[in-house]
């Protein structure tokens, strides 16, 4: 389309100049030459797209994939790729091993909790409180002045109810994000491998009581697929094992709860895997359900490499 537009427009501009030559417009600047440059760029970009499409139509899926792989072999590109040449389709662990631990070798970063709900709750809370306050002040003033506006009074009732709900929802969301203190998770070595053992250390700060505090190692599959015009993602837990459980713990401010544990990675499990639409992810999940209030769940992604018997490391 771009190619056609550029070609037609460029031809029109040049032909009109040949048929009705106007030497004054041939000067550089806005006008003829600018049109020529813009239309020529359309032709070049569109032509490139046409050639690429023609090439893809003629090449097999394997050939195209091989060309992509060849390009990925270039040093500058390969360093920017999400997986290394030595372990294709396994994410790099640079982000997981760049923080040394205090007790064990690595301190794992936590997967960020989505804050969009808190942001939305804050916006609704602020907006609704402002509107409700103004309406309530006007209603009260009318009543004090012995000239009640009953329509506005009736309008204020659902507004106040909605405002109560917004305040409650905002503080619940705020509690989810701030009630529990930071969780620190350390690991003795990384990446993990099947048939190997590793030590973990977890510390939980805050001020609350937990009937149960658990750490689980979880493997989850993730598949992204197109359904009509939507893109959907489905996840399924295929492996989960509890590696630490502490019951009835009380965490005091300034004295974080700390625990060590050892775990064995079983043999025959799938390694971490990442491709365009499919993934296998491993993570530690720290869970706690307090006596009252929202429960806590924090995830710490980890990589599991294959247990290579004679592969190149």
């Amino acid at each position, binding site marked *: 389309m771009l190619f056609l537009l550029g070609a037609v427009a460029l031809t029109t501009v040049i032909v009109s100049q040949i048929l009705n030559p106007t030497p004054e417009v041939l000067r550089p600047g806005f006008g003829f030459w600018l049109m020529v440059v813009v239309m020529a760029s359309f032709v070049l970009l569109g032509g490139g797209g046409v050639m690429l499409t023609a090439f893809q139509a003629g090449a097999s*899926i394997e*050939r195209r994939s091989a060309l992509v792989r060849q390009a990925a072999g270039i040093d500058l590109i390969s360093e920017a790729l999400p997986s290394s040449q030595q372990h*294709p389709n396994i994410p790099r662990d640079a982000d997981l091993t760049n923080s040394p631990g205090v007790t064990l070798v690595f301190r794992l970063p936590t997967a960020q909790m989505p804050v969009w709900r808190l942001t939305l709750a804050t916006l609704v809370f602020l907006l609704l409180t402002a509107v409700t306050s103004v309406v309530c002040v006007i209603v009260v003033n009318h009543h004090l002045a012995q000239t009640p506006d009953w329509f506005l009074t009736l309008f204020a009732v659902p507004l106040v109810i909605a405002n109560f709900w917004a305040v409650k929802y905002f503080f619940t969301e705020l509690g989810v994000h701030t009630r529990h203190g930071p969780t620190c998770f350390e690991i003795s070595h990384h990446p993990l491998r099947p048939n190997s053992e590793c030590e973990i250390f977890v510390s939980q700060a805050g001020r609350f009581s937990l009937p149960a505090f658990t750490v689980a190692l979880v493997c989850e599959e993730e598949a992204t697929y197109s359904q009509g015009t939507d893109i959907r993602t*489905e996840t399924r837990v295929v492996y989960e094992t509890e590696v630490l459980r502490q019951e009835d713990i009380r965490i005091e401010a300034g004295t974080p709860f700390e625990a060590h544990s050892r775990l064995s990675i079983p043999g*025959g499990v*799938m390694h971490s*895997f990442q491709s365009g639409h499919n993934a*296998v992810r491993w993570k530690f999940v720290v869970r706690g359900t307090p006596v009252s209030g929202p429960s806590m769940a924090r995830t710490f992604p980890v990589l599991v490499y294959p247990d290579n018997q004679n592969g190149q490391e």
Partner: protein
Amino acid sequence: MEPLLSLQIDDPHRTYQPGDELECECQVDAIDASDIQAIETSVLWYTEGKGDEDLGVHYFERRVPNDAEDGDLRPMHRFATVLPNSPLSYSGGIVKVRWCARVRLFLRRGKELFFEQPFHLGAVAPIRI
């Protein structure tokens, strides 16, 4: 009559470990040598399951008649490749990774045919749902 495409993996068990060498031989028959435009041999993995298909080529070779001594691509052709560390074959709940060797034949009249032989890389246990 359809051309005959054959692809044979040397190891009858078709089970390999990362770093092992996969050896294959392919052959084309029941077709005129002059009708062959190109033959592509590849070793690749692809995904199956709930998600859209992903594919990664580990080994790829394209041969055209000029690459053969007498311009005839029909005789048996051997190729070998050292298998990578990952991804390993996997039968999960919604994600599956399959490995195969594939031969694709391009004919002069624009038609193409392919044939593949699956094999297993690694020893990951299947997921039982």
